[in-house]
């Protein structure tokens, strides 16, 4: 290294110095526990896939009524077929 690239950037240096990281307790692992990691991955918080559908009152109402309407239509169809 011939010269310090931060020589003229003391402010950047001082800012970088403020970035501290807390080191957690990390046990040394001697065996791979793929199953544990898979379970932990499955258990990690994830986005709700139907979040956009229930974000407003109207959409929530729609989600609740669609199965009822669907069931009614299916029942009607069956009744019509039997007749």
């Amino acid at each position, binding site marked *: *290294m011939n010269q310090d*690239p*931060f020589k003229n*950037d003391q*402010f*950047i240096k001082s*800012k*970088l110095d*403020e*970035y*501290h*990281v807390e*080191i*957690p307790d*990390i*046990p*040394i*692992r*001697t065996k*791979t526990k793929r199953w544990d*990691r898979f379970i*932990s991955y499955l258990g*990690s*918080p*994830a*986005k*709700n*896939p139907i979040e956009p559908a229930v974000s407003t009152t109207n959409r929530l109402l729609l989600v609740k009524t669609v199965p009822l309407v669907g069931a009614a239509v299916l029942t009607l169809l069956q009744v019509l077929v039997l007749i």
Partner: protein
Amino acid sequence: MSNQENEWMAAFQNGDSDALEKIYLVLKGPLYSFIFRYTRDEQLSIDVVQDAFMKLQRNKHQFNPEKGRLRSYLFQIGYRIMIDKLNRRKKWQSILPFLTPLPKEELHQADRMTIREAVARLPDIHRSIILLFYYHDMTHEEISGILDIPKGTVKSRIHHAIKKLKEELGEDINESRSL
């Protein structure tokens, strides 16, 4: 310390398991902070540290002290594991987007947020270089080995990274100067 680390590694290569514990105590922190500053993901960083040390144990005889420091060898292993994990994660997230974990909100002092955000906003290629160069005192040659890029590219990317950091922190600098 570097010679000491290499000596411990030589002892570990000769079957001294206590030497591995010494190496682990000294190097787990630096490796974790590098990965954490790069990814800002605590669990991923812990996994990478553990995987890197497992790989070091498995391939202990591949380390050659004549080729460099143990520290840079371990960082090279850790960096490759991290990139593999991130790529794998991106692939899964593109297939199953609803399994994407929610980003964790962290509360820190305003000034620390600024530098954290500025570092996080750096392009990957610049972020890794600035972290290795500034926080871990790696030489251009060591960075070139860890990232598998030419030495000349390391030099130019350091300057670009500093320039980008200045741009990111630009408003902050102007504010502090005007006070």
